[in-house]
């Protein structure tokens, strides 16, 4: 699968995360989080895991996290990919 258009999923409300995806030549992941100090690695792991399962190797991913749990981050990532991706 590859990201072929700009798309977003999630919100900036508490316990949620806003994920934006857009096409790019390389894989770039940017994360802003209110709990970055404690959970930055876990957030990155969740995002990378969803990308790996979808076999996405390129694209710009930006995540603005408001304290979302792992299952929420994964859901929003999956939705963003669904909206912006296409089977390659």
């Amino acid at each position: 699968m590859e990201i072929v258009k700009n798309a977003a999923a999630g919100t900036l409300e508490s316990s949620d995360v806003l994920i934006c995806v857009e096409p790019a030549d390389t894989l770039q992941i940017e994360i802003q989080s209110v709990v970055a100090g404690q959970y930055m690695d876990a957030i990155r792991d969740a995002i990378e895991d969803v990308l790996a399962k979808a076999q996405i190797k390129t694209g710009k991913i930006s995540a603005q996290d408001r304290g979302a749990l792992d299952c929420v981050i994964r859901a929003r990532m999956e939705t963003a990919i669904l909206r912006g991706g296409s089977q390659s």
Partner: protein
Amino acid sequence: MRRTMLFLPGNTPNMLINGDTLGADSIIYDLEDAVSPDEKDAARILVRNTLKYMRGKGCEIIIRINPIESDYWQADLEEVIPCKPDLIMPTKVGSGQDVQIVAEAITALEKRAGIPEGSVGILPLIETALGVEKAFDIASASPRVAGIFLGGEDLTADLHCKRTREGQEIFYSRCRLVCAARACGVEAYDTPFTDVEDMLGLEKDTQLAKSLGFSGKAVISPRHVETVNALFSPTMEEIEYAHDVMDAIEEGRRQGKGVISLRGKMIDAPIVKRATQVLEMERQMFGGEDV
């Protein structure tokens, strides 16, 4: 026991993840009215993940899906059935055939997911005049049906009348639903009281529902859970009386009596049935041995 069924919007993480801590017997993850059309995809993925990773203990999970006339209901089921929710709530159900269509779709998805057939029940939401008139057909349409649930807001729009605090406009529908449900041996659940601030109105509305024979009531706010739970629970006096009834039955059997009385009144089959129901609720509320 479903004294309370708390609606939670399916695309709101901070409500979904805390749903099982709010005291309701059941929580309803809503994929229908609480989710805008352009967020249906996000909601069903979020609900699926919440079910998969965060399932609470001791709190029944119901998923309200979109109506079968919509383009969404099959995708709703495909996403959530593999996570084995307790019940699916189809909306705007107008016939027994509507229930059978949903039941067949669930069966196919259970097979595909490798979960035992019949694991997921159905709680049809009846919210149209046609649905009310077809309540018996709906309640008896499938062995998956655990109960039927009245939705007062859409119903009053369909009836061309205004929804009021007193609820006279849905009195017939309430009675019809309870009668149909009991005739089929399933439960009946009442529509939510939608004014979150009016606690006295909630109390009166819940008392009315209980007096008509409903087993519980949906709520749209966590603030309503405690009141509805309390009113649909047996009182300590009712529990003590139920124990006395069963003790008297046991004692009568030991003595070989054909007719048994308690506190000057004959104990007949309906009294025993009611006592059994009260003790079953006591067991579910406080634990203990099966009655």
